[in-house]
């Protein structure tokens, strides 16, 4: 791996190596820029470092102190943030979905949220680029939305949990399909195909899972990028000429400074605004890139409610990647809804510890009740949504007075659902209950409170007054400061975000290349 001196300014220093930062590091390096990408977490080698053990693998999560409040405080940690080279994609569930085209203009076309400054047709091309890079295994034809090219790899075999989703959809007369996912259904290079052990959200020890760690970062390194792990960036330095000059980071027990001609923040929707706010100077007292006052605002998670039941036959839902079948019916069907936005739902496959935790936290089971319910584990079947939540300025990340192990102020995360969020959740729970009843599941119960994914807090837009960055992820205030991760989403849609984050990163890299050629950097 190539290494750069701290004193020599690199073209780009990137903070965070997840879906946004890892992808961007790769594409920028491939375009010939010098790149140092830092991550607060370690650089794991899955074949050697990952154990088939849920507890051990909590080492992948971002579990630093954070304060949560609001009417619906978020549960932070494993379910929504990673701390490792590769970011949250190291333990993500690999579901790789495209946005519904109308969502890029949801304000003008659908009457809610905010418009994106991006055109869906251009995004369609970048989605294809990412799908090919990750060798997504997906269905031959996708039932919803405009035509997309065939997925590079074929869909995986459905497990019994996915079959239950399929049967339910057929009974209710809606379409379903195999979930496009980022794990190999055939060998690729030295990587083995998926072995269906279902450890995906604890990190995949076979390298079948395609992620920033496995797919983009090796490419980035081959193209000359440096990955600096265990490097926590505490502050971005900005000078008096409205330019960023580099980053202060903590590594090997001391603070250091890396000079850079451009700084990219890609720490995900909590750490990105936190870093920008923590980097306040006399010139930018409200934090960097924050002339709109929107940094930290419009945080959006996605609703992640579930309906669970018990089947007479064995299901063993944990065999294979957790979400092998999906229906996006309620993302594309607008009739019969009393809410804005959409949701998809997928089959589920929780590992035993997660399942015991769910039974404890959602149903309060403990002791003999928990034990007897765990005996049903092999018969459990579940459906879970990824639902759109609306952007609200009151849902936000601010700085608390407390500090963390580096002496940095920790984030306070405020979250409350709005009525629309609640209506969407109610609709989904009723519908999924019907779907489980249709396959003769018994003991059906609802998990009412769960969320996933983090987006917003540095939204992109066409107007410096109402957005933090432009369509190229470039901040309006400091022209060599960029934000390229889930934070830039103006809305979240009803699908998992990583494919869109990566597509945006690929687009941003291409735009930077074009602008560099024109001398516009």
């Amino acid at each position, binding site marked *: *791996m190539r290494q750069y001196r701290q004193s020599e300014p690199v073209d780009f220093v990137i903070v965070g190596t997840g879906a946004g930062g890892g992808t961007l590091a790769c594409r920028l390096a491939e375009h010939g820029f010098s790149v140092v990408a830092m991550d607060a977490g370690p650089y794991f080698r899955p074949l050697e470092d990952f154990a088939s053990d849920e507890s051990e693998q909590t080492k992948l999560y971002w579990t630093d102190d954070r304060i949560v409040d609001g009417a619906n405080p978020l549960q932070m940690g494993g379910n929504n943030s990673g701390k490792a080279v590769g970011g949250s994609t190291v333990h993500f569930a690999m579901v790789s979905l495209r946005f519904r085209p109308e969502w890029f203009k949801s304000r003008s076309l659908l009457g809610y949220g905010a418009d994106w400054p991006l055109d869906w047709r251009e995004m369609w091309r970048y989605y294809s680029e990412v799908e090919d890079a990750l*060798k997504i295994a997906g*269905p*031959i034809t996708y039932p919803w939305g405009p035509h997309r090219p065939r997925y*590079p*790899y*074929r*869909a995986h*075999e*459905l497990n019994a949990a996915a*079959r239950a989703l*399929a*049967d339910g959809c*057929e009974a209710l007369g809606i379409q379903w399909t*195999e979930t496009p996912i980022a794990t190999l*259904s*055939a*060998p*690729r*290079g*030295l990587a*083995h*195909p998926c*072995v269906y052990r279902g450890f995906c959200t604890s990190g995949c020890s*076979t390298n*079948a899972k395609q992620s920033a760690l496995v797919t983009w970062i*090796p*490419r980035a*390194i*081959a193209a000359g990028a440096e990955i600096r792990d265990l490097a926590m960036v505490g502050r971005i330095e900005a000078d008096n000429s409205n330019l960023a000059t580099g980053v202060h980071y903590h590594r090997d027990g001391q603070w250091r400074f890396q000079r850079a001609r451009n700084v990219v923040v890609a720490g995900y929707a909590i750490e990105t605004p936190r870093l920008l706010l923590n980097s306040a100077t006399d010139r930018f007292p409200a934090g960097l890139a924050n002339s709109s006052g929107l940094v930290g605002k419009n945080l959006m998670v996605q609703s992640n409610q579930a309906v669970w039941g018990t089947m007479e036959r064995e299901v063993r839902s944990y065999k294979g990647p957790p979400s092998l079948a999906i229906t996006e019916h309620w993302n594309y069907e607008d009739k019969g809804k009393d809410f804005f936005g959409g949701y998809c739902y997928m089959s589920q496959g929780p590992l035993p510890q997660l399942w015991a935790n769910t039974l404890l936290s959602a149903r309060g089971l403990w002791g003999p009740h928990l034990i007897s319910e765990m005996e049903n584990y092999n018969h459990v079947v579940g459906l879970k949504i990824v639902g759109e939540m609306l952007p609200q300025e009151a849902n936000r990340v601010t700085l608390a007075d407390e500090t963390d192990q580096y002496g940095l102020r920790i984030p306070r995360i405020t979250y409350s659902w709005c009525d629309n969020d609640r209506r969407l959740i109610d609709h989904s729970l009723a519908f999924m209950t019907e779907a489980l009843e249709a396959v003769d599941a018994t003991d059906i119960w609802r998990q009412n409170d769960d969320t996933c994914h983090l987006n917003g807090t540095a939204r992109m837009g066409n107007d410096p007054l109402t957005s933090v960055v432009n369509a190229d992820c470039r901040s309006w205030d400091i022209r060599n400061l960029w934000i390229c991760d889930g934070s830039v989403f103006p809305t979240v849609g009803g699908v998992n975000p990583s494919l869109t984050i990566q597509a945006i990163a690929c687009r941003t890299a291409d735009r930077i290349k074009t602008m560099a050629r024109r001398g516009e950097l």
Partner: protein
Amino acid sequence: MRRSNGVTATQIALGLAALAASSSLLDKRSLARARKYRTGEPKQAKAVYDNRILGGKLDVPATVTAAKRLNRAAGMLALSVLADSGVEHYRGSFKNKAMFTPLIVSAATLGVSVHGTADRRKAAHIMRDTTYLLAATTGLIGTCFHFYNVAKKAGGFSWQNLFYGAPLGAPMAILLSGLIGFCSERVRETPRGITPSIFDLPAGRAMAALTSVGLLGTAGEAGLLHFRGAFHNPFMLLPVTLPPLGAALLARTAAAGPGRRHPFVRWWMRLLVTMGLAGVGFHAYGVSRNMGGWRNWSQNVLNGPPLPAPPSFAGLALAGLAALGLMRDHPDA
């Protein structure tokens, strides 16, 4: 740092060269044999000539030679089915007792085929005949079973179920083995001087046509499963290109009428025999690409590409060769 072991153009070229070389080696051996018989002989009807030579040497008429070759082809197919259904149905835990059937039947078919290959007599054998018919029937019933298995799943005849449900084409292999064996008996019992025929069709060309259809079907099956593997290795294209060409060549042979020699088609069939046998090697490599490789054989043999499947191409190509041989030795067939 970028780790890739993508198959290079050189590797592909080497592989193809090896295939071509070994198949022409096969071809040379038989050409040499033919040349040995032919030296100094005036041009005359091949059948008469062969009969004389072979008759003098072994007293085996051309029909029996052809029948033996067909037995060998049927045996090769049966062996492939025995191993393949053994592995696959074991993987399916023999959930349904009927899943033992193809094992028993293909083992019996293999047995009678070995018997037939060694048998120089001119008469059909009742055991062989019955077994071959039984094999053909099993193939038909098995096909129905597999269709039913796929149809009853959510999504019906969707790609998902075609990829991962019971393979629709697999039982056809035992059907073909049975048919080839049955034809072999008809050829064998043809009296000297009479053109061997099957259901009133000239036997050589009828077999060529049947083999042609078999090759197409088998290529279809390989195509489906290699598509499932996204043709991730370029060699996976071989069984979907070479056999259909072979099928076309055989079909043309069947249509071409009597009295011709088809050296190129014979060469192509040998290429297919080589490909079918080499396929086991390729699939063995495929097994090694799974987690744990061959160290974890007990899982990966079930999980990876089926080792016994490719030889069914070899079996069919042998049948094609037998048909071509019969046409050469018996210009009217």
